[in-house]
């Protein structure tokens, strides 16, 4: 039998052991508490906040795009978007059936989506207000509306390709919308709210709200009326001539501001069809064409500047056929010895080629480069291409003669109109641009980046050469010139016709059946207000530039000058009021 001392000793030993275990447990607990509260504390607080707080991005209002007179070309509108909270939907099948009728979709996939174990799904974004009202009237539990912003182009297809469009996430995807996306987009805001374990909002008032910053506005050089005139005349000539498409560019030669950029086929940025990306291509800056005779002005400028020819020098045009480099160069009509002015006025290929031979390939190549061909003009819209001009090392024996008359080169419409603007303004190459002003969210004008608006206009020819060229180009529009149909009553016009054969994709050779008809010129020729380029793609019949494009030029110039004479509206943000109006009268 154990002695009492031994029992007491054992009991005390057990008590000490229990105490030691408890102490160790408390110590471990204490260490764990310190670890959780002190060492990992901030991390857990952050995690808890993340679980209790929900942040919603608030889209900023995208800036408005105006024409030069303050007419809205693109703006944001608040429209409803439809979403669902599946956990709140008891009967996805019946709600899907009701919704499908309103939304015009298949009910089965919709029911499947409504039954998904997710807290939020978009049903349809930026819906028509009438559709939103119909959904609201359904009163379906778990189906809700949220205001979102939608990009609206109130003038529909007007200036469609140049404006481009913004996508579902309000990001500029094409045209000016893309080129100036950072300016237009603004900055997203954030709305942070607290929610309970069920995910429901605890307070109606937001905990934190970082307001979105509205995007800046753009004022374009575009004149809505001139744009409309250009598109109207382009539509008319395409319908009349059965052409595949066309382009008209109207530019202010003084500073390179584009007044109109009409491209057909038409594109309505409100209705973007992703299956036809070609429809939103801005052909004025992306598509190349052989300029044909309109390019002769480059040869003429270089020859006059170099002094290898004078306007009244006689050139033998060989009665319409001239053998060169193993081939024969033809004129559209047999011409004898005529002055250099008449060579251009009558668009003689032979006369121009002979002058080019005097000039030599290096000087012609320098002139082509000086006019900006073969490189981007730097216009402030994305997607511009450089054009196609081969280096002199790759010129063939015929290249000097053919390039002088606008073959073997590929140019864009904006390059060609910019080159003629240089003739119109006395010899300086301006940089074409579409944006004249950027305004911040308070409407204050912001400076445009220097590289976007380069004010240095390099000289490509002397003023005297530009003046002689202008006189020559005026003869083109005289009754005996190829561009007689471009003449505008009461206004002096200088310009040049162009008819270039296209390459048949099947044979890889020039075909007489497909041509590009063009006319480019400026008016009034001695105090130019506008340079206008008309390019008609593949008109039916002969399709001479003088018969297809020149009349369009005349109509555009006539209407544009009449419009530019008239005063702006009193609310005009760009131009001050003037003192004249034109009238529409009943007949």
């Amino acid at each position: 039998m154990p002695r009492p001392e031994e029992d007491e000793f054992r009991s005390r030993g057990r008590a000490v052991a229990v105490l030691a275990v408890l102490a160790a447990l408390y110590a471990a607990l204490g260490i764990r508490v310190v670890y959780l509260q002190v060492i990992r504390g901030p991390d857990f607080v952050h995690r808890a906040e993340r679980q209790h707080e929900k942040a919603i991005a608030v889209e900023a209002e995208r800036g408005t795009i105006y024409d030069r007179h303050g007419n809205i070309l693109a703006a944001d509108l608040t429209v409803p978007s439809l979403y669902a909270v599946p956990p709140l939907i008891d009967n996805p099948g019946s709600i899907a059936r009701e919704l499908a009728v309103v939304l015009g979709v298949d009910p089965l996939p919709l029911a499947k989506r409504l039954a998904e174990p997710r807290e939020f799904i978009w049903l349809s974004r930026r819906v028509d207000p009438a559709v939103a009202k119909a959904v609201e009237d359904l009163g379906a539990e778990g189906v809700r509306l949220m205001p979102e912003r939608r990009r609206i182009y109130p003038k529909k297809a007007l200036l469609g390709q140049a404006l481009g469009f913004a996508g579902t996430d309000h990001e500029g995807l094409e045209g000016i919308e893309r080129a100036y996306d950072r300016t237009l987009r603004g900055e997203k805001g954030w709305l942070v709210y607290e929610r309970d374990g069920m995910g429901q909002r605890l307070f109606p008032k937001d905990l934190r709200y970082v307001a979105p910053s509205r995007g800046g506005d753009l004022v374009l050089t575009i004149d809505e009326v001139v744009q409309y005139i250009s598109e109207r005349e382009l539509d008319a000539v395409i319908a009349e001539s059965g052409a595949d498409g066309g382009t008209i560019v109207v530019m202010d030669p003084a500073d390179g501001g584009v007044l109109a950029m009409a491209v057909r086929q038409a594109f309505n940025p409100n209705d973007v069809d992703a299956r036809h990306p070609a429809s939103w291509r801005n052909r004025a800056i992306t598509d190349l064409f052989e300029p044909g005779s309109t390019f002769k002005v480059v040869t003429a400028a270089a020859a006059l500047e170099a002094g290898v020819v004078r306007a009244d020098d006689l050139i033998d045009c060989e009665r319409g056929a001239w053998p060169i480099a193993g081939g024969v160069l033809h004129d559209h009509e047999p011409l004898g010895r005529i002055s250099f002015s008449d060579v251009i006025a009558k668009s003689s290929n032979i006369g121009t080629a002979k002058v080019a031979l005097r000039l030599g390939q290096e000087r012609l190549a320098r002139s082509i480069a000086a006019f900006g061909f073969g490189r981007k003009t730097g216009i402030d819209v994305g997607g511009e291409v450089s054009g196609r001009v081969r280096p002199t090392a790759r010129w063939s024996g015929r290249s000097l003669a053919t390039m002088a008359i606008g073959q073997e080169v590929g140019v864009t419409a904006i390059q060609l109109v910019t080159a003629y603007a240089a003739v119109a303004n006395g010899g300086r190459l301006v940089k074409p641009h579409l944006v004249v002003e950027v305004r911040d969210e308070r409407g204050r004008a912001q400076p445009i980046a220097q590289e976007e608006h380069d004010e240095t206009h390099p000289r490509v020819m002397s003023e005297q050469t530009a003046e002689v060229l202008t006189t020559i180009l005026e003869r083109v529009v005289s009754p005996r010139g190829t561009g007689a149909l471009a003449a505008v009553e009461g206004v002096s016009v200088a310009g040049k016709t162009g008819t270039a054969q296209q390459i048949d994709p099947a044979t890889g050779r020039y075909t007489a059946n497909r041509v590009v008809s063009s006319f480019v010129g400026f008016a009034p020729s001695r105090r130019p207000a506008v340079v206008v380029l008309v390019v008609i793609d593949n008109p039916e019949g002969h399709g001479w530039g003088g018969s297809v494009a020149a009349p369009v030029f005349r109509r555009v110039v006539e209407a544009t000058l009449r419009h530019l004479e008239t005063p702006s509206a009193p609310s005009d943000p760009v131009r001050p009021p003037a003192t004249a109006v034109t009238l529409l009268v009943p007949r």
Partner: protein
Amino acid sequence: MVARFQTWYWRLGGVWGLGSAVVIVSLIVLWHHSRIVQLGYETERLEADKGRLERIHRQLVIERESLASLDRVEHLAAGLGLVHLAPREVVVVRMDPPPAERDQTFAVALGRRILPAEAHAAP
């Protein structure tokens, strides 16, 4: 005895006064708080109204721009029998400088002549 009564009276008065002051301040704070809440609701309501009116204004501005589309205007004008004048049928009359009392625009359809000076003719 009287002195003790006076002391007690003054103490009671002090407590009562203090209590009253606390109650009054509390009431003021409560009123102030409820007023802030009330104004907060009012502000929210007015802000919602403002937002709604701004949205409507925006819609109307865009609708106006859409209705003012030139192709639509020209279509309507054609329907009314209106036509563009030929260039020679238009005369643009300009005044230089425009008199302040007659800072109005006008035109006379008499034939294409610019009055009074060629200097202000078409660009």
